[in-house]
């Protein structure tokens, strides 16, 4: 199978994956106790008012009709061209607002957090993993492994609060939460990523303020994720360093760093790359907790809020968005893997 066929197959496979995910969320939400209609009324609700709200939310229709209507909205090309995002329906709680609009206003915050966390996790994870494998069974190896285990085990909110206390409350170096200092105007939206947008607009103050705000949440999430990266890198490097080609490279008198990073790490990197793709799903799960801990207005906070309101459409939309994102990352990783290792395509 050629690379092109491989990519097309992988893209086609994402469709049933997403459909399955969507169907499950659609059904599970409706099985949960709690009526989104009742949540609109604190008191004095007549049966007529309740029925009117049920009709307004489209919940008076049979389940299959609601499902088909929802799927129809998703593939409404005209809507996508008009709005720039698929028709995910209206929020069942804030009935005047489009779920698509809400999700796409929150997604850049989650994406920015995910990207910076991934960078931090990768740098710390790979460097410490390599260092650990190079000093196998030494004190530094044990220390790094211990660090990896502890960071993997420590709850996100706990590490987050510790960082907030140290860097925010005691040292007062960094803000304890939020995306940017409110005294500073957020940059105008281009990508929705504050650090990028402020740089594109030459807004240096905005860039520093958003980077300051980003540092603690991404460090928290990055360190938590780095534990898995350390272990994975260490294990793969240990196996690779024992291989003959490494010994041969050393025998040819190549520099130790060239052998480690140029030869061994390059070969050990393929499984690490796959794991990075898989970790993106965990990273998004972790982002929910990180966002809560740092009052980060992203998609994670959105999902948590909306579960309380039984906002079916909002939760469906957010889960589809997460699913789409994880699927895309997996797809990119698979393609990269196939590109780097031709055996995959055979």
């Amino acid at each position, binding site marked *: 199978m050629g690379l092109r066929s491989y990519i097309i197959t992988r893209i086609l496979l994402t469709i049933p994956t997403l459909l399955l995910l969507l169907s499950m969320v659609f059904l599970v939400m409706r099985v949960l106790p709690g009526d989104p209609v009742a949540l609109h009324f604190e*008191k004095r609700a007549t049966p007529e008012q309740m029925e009117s709200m049920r009709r*307004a939310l489209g919940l008076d229709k049979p389940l299959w009709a609601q499902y088909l209507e929802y799927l129809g909205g998703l593939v409404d090309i005209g809507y996508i061209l008009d709005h720039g995002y698929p028709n995910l329906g209206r929020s069942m709680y804030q009935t*005047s607002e489009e779920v698509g609009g809400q999700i796409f206003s*929150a997604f850049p915050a989650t994406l920015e957090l995910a990207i910076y966390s991934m960078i931090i996790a990768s740098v710390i994870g790979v460097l410490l993993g390599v260092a650990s494998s190079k000093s196998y069974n030494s004190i530094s190896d044990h220390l790094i492994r211990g660090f990896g285990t502890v960071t993997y085990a420590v709850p996100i909110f706990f590490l987050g609060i510790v960082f907030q206390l140290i860097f925010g409350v005691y040292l007062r170096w960094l803000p304890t939460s939020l995306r940017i200092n409110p005294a500073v105007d957020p940059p105008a939206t281009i990508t929705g990523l504050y650090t990028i947008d402020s740089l594109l607009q030459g807004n240096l103050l905005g860039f*520093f303020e958003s980077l*300051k705000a980003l540092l603690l949440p991404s460090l928290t999430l990055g360190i938590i994720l780095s534990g898995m990266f350390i272990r994975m890198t260490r294990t793969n490097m240990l196996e690779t360093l024992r291989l003959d080609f490494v010994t041969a490279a050393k025998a040819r008198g190549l520099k130790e760093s060239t052998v480690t990073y140029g030869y061994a790490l390059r070969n050990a990197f393929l499984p690490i790359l796959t794991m990075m793709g898989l970790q993106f799903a965990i990273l998004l799960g972790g982002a929910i907790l990180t*966002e809560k801990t740092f009052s980060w207005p992203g*998609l994670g906070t*959105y999902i948590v809020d909306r579960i309380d309101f039984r906002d079916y459409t909002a939760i469906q939309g957010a889960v589809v968005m997460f699913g789409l994102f994880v699927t895309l990352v997996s797809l990119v990783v698979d393609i990269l893997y196939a590109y780097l290792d031709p055996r995959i395509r055979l």
Partner: protein
Amino acid sequence: MEKIELSIVVLVLIGIIVSSGTMYYMTTAIDNLSTLTDDVSTLTESVTNLTSTVSDLALIMAEGFEEYAEALAALTARLAAIEAGLAAKETLIVGTTDSVEKTLDPAQAYDYFGWCILQQIGGTLVSVEPGSPTGADFLPDLAVNWSSNEDLDIWDFNLREGVKFSDGTEFNATHVKYSFDRAIALIPSIPEGAPAGLGYDAIIDSTEVLDTYKVRFHLKMSFSPFLGILASRSSTIVNPQYAPIAQINHTAGDARASTPVAFAGPYVLSKWNRVAGRDVEVKLDANPNYWDLASGYPKMDYIIFRFYSDATTLRLAIEAGDVDMAYRHTSPTDVLDLEDNPNVKVWWGTGAQIQYLCFQQKRAPFNDTRVRVAVTAALNRTAVCETVFLGLSDPLYSIIPPGMLGHTEAFQKLGDANYTLTTSLLAAAGYDSTNKLEFDLWYESSGHYPMSAEQALLYKEALEASGVITVTLKYADWAGYKQNRDNEIMDAYIYGWYPDYVDPDNYAFLYWASWIHTNYYNETINGLPNPSYPAYLEQVALYDEARATTNTTLREELYAQIDAIAVEQCSAVPLWVGSGWAVTTPPIYGIYIDITQDMRYWLIYK
């Protein structure tokens, strides 16, 4: 070679620390530079003004005193400009866990924070005096005085002249009529019905313009708490230009599109950014057209709200100095802890939030009045207030909270953990230590009410300590809890109330409110006569009588009688009333936390 990798790691870590430090100092430097530039610019402006003033003085000296008066006026104006220029632009940054729920349109808004913002940007005919212990001390706002007929069904208001909306539109009586006509007209088109929740359509028959600055309300009933309703945010006067008569503007698909801008309050809403249906940025600027500018209000030029996801992050933010003030919600534990922190100040005040216990009367065991009274007598409110709320709430023995007209200690008659009474009543109902009364006690588990699980546990302990009761604790999140309430499947359940307007009228009805679904108010239950129904009718008659009189002594007596019946029936049982608090970084002044729970930000200054 491993030393190299370790060195790299150490260098990376040092890099992170150094770069964060550098970023901090660079940002501080940029901040300082920006402040310095502002100061220099203000100073330059002031110096220019002074130079100009001195030139004028020289001119006056040269030309004699012929144009003295004119020159003096110009001089005074210029000095005022200098003073204004030199005055620092002050900003108050407020941290909160709240967010506007759906809209800031007074015809639909029905949440604490939405009402809070409306209070800062909007004007009402009357307002409650800050610090009022009863919530019944009304001050003129957009109306200067008022009167009613003896039947309390016609109310006249003389309006303040010279008031402008923030866009410069002159305010007059037509705006008052328009605002109430619009609110009532919109009720059918808003499925959830606010402000029908306040009963406007049931109370107001019509609004009549008597004069440019005089308006009359014709009510459908005699209604003494009318001023309380007029002081609520639903009664905010709107500017017709921005508030279509029959439309909450939802077409733009964004809550902000439904906000009629240009109200007549101390502030204007200059920024309102939301992400995924939740506020991320709200900024208020002083309204240049505010009618009470001459008195120095609003005190602060800008109010900025920062939005936190929970009490813990809000606490950290106030400790870190990220915000000047934290209001709603820091937890009782945190706020007591913060009292010992010399860098912050905790402000205490009265609360209006109450919780009460409801009994499902359509089936056994709570269709028996003796059982309801017995369980009520076994409750231990004090233990809950002291242990769960650390003394920041008080046991409540009337559905009307302390401080308010009509509050009594009626339920003291049954006592707390009064097991003698519990045992004897349950014995009469056929229960004893071998045949214990068993029921489910439900609480809400998703944080809609504070510390619900802890409370429920203590109630269970107290009830079971009687030796004749077995309680099974059950819970559901808010969505499930409301569904269970409506489906009437919960034996006993804890519920809460926060007033729409500060008047006993907005509390007393909780004993029989049909939306709580206790069935106490039904003439028949399961086809059989409801023995509690006559008591309910008596309470409603007393309630209506209290509504129809302004005689406070009589009202107090009537509410006391309602409480007395409630003690005998125990349809809904008051549990506790909370207190209010705010945390600030000193020096901040002008904070009033009273029974209204309104935070009047225009009074706050540094």
